[in-house]
């Protein structure tokens, strides 16, 4: 199956022209589904972080460490948590295009050409997602009005979020 690049005005109306390969209709995923998937991802991230922190906390509780070192460990833990969060999203977006939350809700993140995104673009998307969240999540509002249901972070990173059943990223990879 081949996929044509999404055409904003004609989305959902793609019809095969005579003598050309059939064109799949791509379904873009909206705000509610993406929010729930993000909540699921946040739960996974925090569950892993809490379990890891608990293990380390218990291990460190039997050691009498200086208070300065404890502060340093807390800072290191915070940095690891941030790195873990970034790595989680960047890793999943740039490999399968699906975080566990997106997999549960059956959608994936891909480039506007419906191909996989590279780690750098995934990193840009993550940074743009933080930016979109800063003004009271206003950066996500374009999802409800945009033709391709893109948020600010999607526009900056040139990505779209599509139904996983509609597109196979590996097949569409250049």
């Amino acid at each position, binding site marked *: 199956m081949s996929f044509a690049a999404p055409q904003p005005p004609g989305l959902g109306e793609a019809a095969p022209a005579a003598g050309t390969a059939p064109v799949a209709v791509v379904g873009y995923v909206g705000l509610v589904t993406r929010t729930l998937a993000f909540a699921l991802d946040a739960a996974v991230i925090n569950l892993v972080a809490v379990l890891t922190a608990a293990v380390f906390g218990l291990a460190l509780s039997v050691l009498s460490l200086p208070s300065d070192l404890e502060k340093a460990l807390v800072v290191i833990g915070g940095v690891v948590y941030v790195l873990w969060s970034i790595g989680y999203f960047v890793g999943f977006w740039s490999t399968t295009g699906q975080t566990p939350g997106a997999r549960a809700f*059956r959608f994936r993140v891909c480039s506007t050409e419906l191909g996989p995104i590279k780690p750098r673009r995934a990193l840009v998307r993550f940074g743009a997602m933080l930016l979109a969240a800063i003004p009271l999540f206003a950066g996500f509002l374009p999802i409800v009005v945009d033709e391709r249901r893109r948020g600010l972070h999607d526009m900056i990173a040139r990505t779209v979020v599509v139904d996983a059943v509609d597109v196979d990223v590996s097949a569409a990879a250049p």
Partner: protein
Amino acid sequence: MRIQLLDPFGVVRLGGRVVRSTASAAEDAAITALDTALRSELASRAVCLLVEGPLGDVAARAAVRSGLIERVAGEMLEAGVAEHVADRVLQGSELDRLVTRVLEDQATERLVAQVLDSRLLDESVKRVLASEELWLVVDEIARSPAVTAAISQQGMGFADQVVEEVGVRTRRADAWLERAARRMLNRTASPATPASGP
């Protein structure tokens, strides 16, 4: 050569033929007489007297005591009579008819009802449930690859069903939210927004 010398006129041979034919005729006559006697009412009464009288009991006891019945049964088993009889019964239509008749009989129904109502069944079930062997068998079956595969497949199927349903509902919510937003902004409906949905 020696016979010809001793009996030049064949008298001995002639005598032998006469004796043989006489014996054959006598045998036929005896068999005919015996057959007639066995078919007669007298023979029937004699057999009845023999079987019903004390002589029959004595003969039966003697047969049991001497192990005659066991020997006869052993001989029959060795000769494969039991297998032949079993094959004949199993291949014939008599067994089907018999089973059908037994199953359709009201007496069987009553018997089954009595068994089900009886304490015997409850006791049997209790004993079976209390036996360790049963749980070993159940454990073995539960651990079998076929059963575990079936259970996991069913679990996966249920999870898939839930995910599918949640996905459908959230996508409807997406469409509803977008329609509401577009109404507020007085914009035309997006092609990405399906017509269906709440």
